[in-house]
């Protein structure tokens, strides 16, 4: 996989010179404001409740929208500057290119989640939480939330590859994110709706008993992993067939 590492470092270079980092830190900043300003009742002061407050905006809005933005941007420079012809005429396996782009998108989402974790812990200590750091909660909710964004990342990357447009996949992503709150109420549909999966995963750990939130995590994860496989394979097949 020597070739993959090369493609990855090339993609990293392209993204490193953009303003993407603003988007990466945006959600942790907004979440930290929620965490600082929210009025948590004295008798509910716990890591779980704080996570529920802080993750609500992050998981409902940012986690579904960010994969679309990152995917659109990582293809944007190829769309705009005619880069597809250039990069696909290089000795690069098309699958390596897709996987490299996916890795960068997933990496940026991971950084966003890590920052969120840092902010979350910081605010917990600031509020004087004495309970030990809830590693199990972090693993299921934050790591799980990241995994739950991967199907969307694969779907959006595939859409951005197929459409020779920067805005269309992005707009569609936002449109599908908007009804998240409604979809989340439906126990039947929510687990299958990629845009609500990050929210289900992140919030199911902190027990909120309505709609799809009381579904067992294992069931959501099974759906997440299988839809990821479907979208990812679709992307690999489509980039292989892409005519430029």
């Amino acid at each position: 996989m020597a070739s993959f590492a090369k493609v990855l470092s090339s993609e990293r270079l392209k993204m490193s010179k953009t303003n993407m980092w603003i988007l990466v830190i945006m959600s942790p900043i907004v979440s930290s404001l929620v965490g600082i300003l929210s009025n948590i009742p004295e008798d509910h002061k716990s890591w779980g409740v704080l996570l529920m407050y802080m993750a609500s905006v992050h998981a409902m809005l940012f986690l579904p929208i960010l994969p679309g933005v990152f995917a659109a941007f990582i293809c944007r420079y190829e769309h705009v500057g005619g880069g597809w012809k250039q990069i696909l005429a290089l000795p690069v396996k098309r699958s390596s290119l897709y996987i490299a782009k996916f890795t960068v998108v997933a990496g940026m989402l991971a950084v966003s989640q890590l920052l969120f974790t840092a902010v979350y812990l910081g605010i917990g200590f600031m509020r004087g939480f004495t309970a030990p750091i809830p590693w199990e909660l972090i693993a299921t909710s934050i790591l799980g939330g990241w995994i739950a964004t991967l199907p969307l990342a694969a779907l959006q990357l595939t859409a951005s590859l197929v459409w020779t447009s920067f805005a269309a996949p992005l707009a569609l992503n936002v449109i599908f994110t908007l009804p998240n709150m409604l979809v989340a109420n439906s126990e039947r549909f929510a687990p299958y709706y990629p845009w609500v999966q990050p929210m289900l995963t992140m919030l199911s750990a902190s027990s909120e008993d309505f709609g799809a939130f009381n579904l067992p995590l294992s069931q959501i994860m099974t759906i997440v992993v299988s839809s990821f496989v479907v979208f990812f394979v679709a992307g690999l097949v489509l980039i292989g067939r892409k005519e430029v």
Partner: protein
Amino acid sequence: MSEFVIQTRGLVKEYRGRKAVDQLNLEIKHGEIYGFLGPNGAGKTTTIRMLLGLVKPTKGAIRILGKDLQKEKLSILGKVGSLVEYPSYYGHLNATENLEAIRRILDAPKSRIAEVLDIVSLTKEAKRPVKGFSLGMKQRLGIASALLGNPELLILDEPTNGLDPSGIQEIRELIKTMPEQHGITVLVSSHLLSEVELMATKVGIIREGRMVFQDTIERLRRQAETGIRLSVSAPEQALAAAQEKGYDGVIDGAFLNFTKLHNKDVAVLVRHLVENHHDIYRVEEQKKSLEEIFMRIVGEGAAS
């Protein structure tokens, strides 16, 4: 077989039943500068895209540098530098970073970036974001990217498109040095003969997806010198008289135009006309310009 750097056999590309490229046999030898000519939409870019593996041929075989493109695509692409249609670039990066993004994939030495920037005279502009570049500079950066991996074959699609005359001249001089100085075979496409005639050693002319001429530029020039033009008193009657002798010409105002006449034929024709009491004011050899030949080759069949 292996003497060709590029060889295609019966190459066909169909888009929704329309043949963009039809039974194309390209033959490009080592060290040539091959001018790939044709009007816009004739199938040049489609052919080039197939050569680079960007689109799949509907039918036919492509061999590049002695290897089958379908089987050994990546190893071939490692030895080919390309610039397709308009230059590709990452506007938010500067020239060096643009080349670095490609260098990382090609695994070329870092020093190569400075070398190719120097070849295309962009060293001074290396640290400027490419979105502020003029078209000519972007075009040169595109050529620099194509040269980055030390290719054996350079495929340039309309590299002078949209450039001003001095930019065209500059790129042309650059291309001319490739075979001698770097041992690179070059395929360069254009819709204007005048752009390639000063650098190409061989030309291929494509029309409606079909190759209509493929030979050296001298051969093309030779086609230019065959016309004889007669200025006569009564063109129509003179033409009828000429036809009696089996010479078919074309009336062009007060002139009669004949093609493919040898010296002997000219003598016979003139004597015949004089004997039939036609006044001949002038007998001219018509040297058609290369451009006219090109237009004629390209224009044929356009009416039918």
